[in-house]
């Protein structure tokens, strides 16, 4: 079973679909702070909920506060996907 690989492009799509951002406002690669995308705390929560649903993982509350940029979010998800138990 292959492990899904989370990319900035996927994160961008989630932001477009669930937060209503314009695709043009988010780069496909690189690191952008959520604050620079004008995401308030509720938008970040909504994004995290969408990631949780789509990838079947839970972002711990303690970790969530520290994930404040696209690169941080992508790295976090990939680390957790790689270490998740395979059924």
């Amino acid at each position, binding site marked *: 079973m292959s492990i899904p690989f989370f990319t900035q492009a996927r994160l961008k799509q989630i932001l477009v679909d*669930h*937060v*209503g951002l314009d695709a043009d406002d988010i780069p496909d690669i690189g690191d952008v702070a959520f604050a620079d995308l004008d995401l308030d705390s*509720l938008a970040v929560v*909504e994004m995290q909920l969408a990631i*949780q*649903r789509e990838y079947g993982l839970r972002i711990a509350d303690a970790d969530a506060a520290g994930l404040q940029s696209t690169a941080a979010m992508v790295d976090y998800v990939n680390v957790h996907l790689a270490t998740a138990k395979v059924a």
Partner: protein
Amino acid sequence: MNPVVTGIGVVAPTGIGTDAWWEATLRGDAGIATITRFDASRYATRFAGEVEGFEGTDYIPRRLAMQTDRWTWMGLAAAEMAFADAGFDPAGGDPYRQAVITASSSGGNEFGQVEIQKLWGKGPEHVGAYQSIAWFYAATTGQISIKHGMKGHCGVVAAEGAGALEALASSRRALRRGMDAIVSGGLEAPIGPYALTCQESHGLMSTIGEYRPFDERASGYLPGEGGAILLLETAAAARARGARVYGEIAGYGATHDGGLASDGVQLARAIRLALDDAGVAPGDVDVVFADGAGSVELDVAEARALQSVFGVREVPVTVPKAAFGRTYAGGAALDVAAALLSLRDRRIPPPINVERPAHDLRLVLDHSEAADLHTALVVARGYGGFNSAAVLRRATTTQED
């Protein structure tokens, strides 16, 4: 000091935009049809006044539309219209002396419907974060306040069909206590599965698809969506910026039926309180915009109340909402808008579908009866026993403080 109305914005089943709606109202256009927002074929009530062609993203960015309900989209749109109408820019004033006080009767229904279906259909992890801010009654007030930086005495009032008059009364109090400008009025978007179920539970809606207030064939009311935003300013502030004034909120009164059957006694008292507050005698009122509940008992009670205050057939009475339905928090706001425009244009819109008047009221059945109008009374009732009344006076060249 009586605050004045300097801007009006309307989103209604018979028109988007104040001018379009008012022209439709004077013509007597009908805005109630088979519900299309969802399949209501198995509901007892299958007809409503829907605002066709209203898209939130025509007025606000997609990011904001995704975190708000249709009812809030309408409120944001109507607020923009009211500002434009008034030539008023919130950015030009002290943010702490500007506020938003609207009415709401059920909050974000369509948004909530989608989320509650996800909750029970897929599980709690599927409920989005924005439900937390989209559903609650103050969402429209909050979003208007945030968008326009109006940080003063904000609030929301829930009194069902009487809500918008209560919001105007709260606004009047706040303006007397230091606010310069308040965005007020109310809207509702209650056409959805759970929303309609809630409305059906009280048995006051028509199950034969008709809304004929004060008619022999009254069988209940039909619901509608939409409402109006009214920009209120102190008379001094309006004068200082040379604003065009529609009229003043000259008097207000409110009572409650206290859990007893509504027999019109408390409603009559609310009307008298409003007249006294305005320093106006019944004979000075030129037109009454009645609540028009549309069910026999409630119509009888309102007719009795009007007759006890004004006498029989002494004052012209109309119910413009017969054309588009009872819009709950929007109802009295639209009535105030209609009353002010009536005073401006000296024309009274007819109550449509009232063909066999039943209650010895002087209903304005002639097509937009022309009259010299100076003072209007708006009457609004809410399910549960709310009774509110407001006296509006046409703008004069010298508005006294």
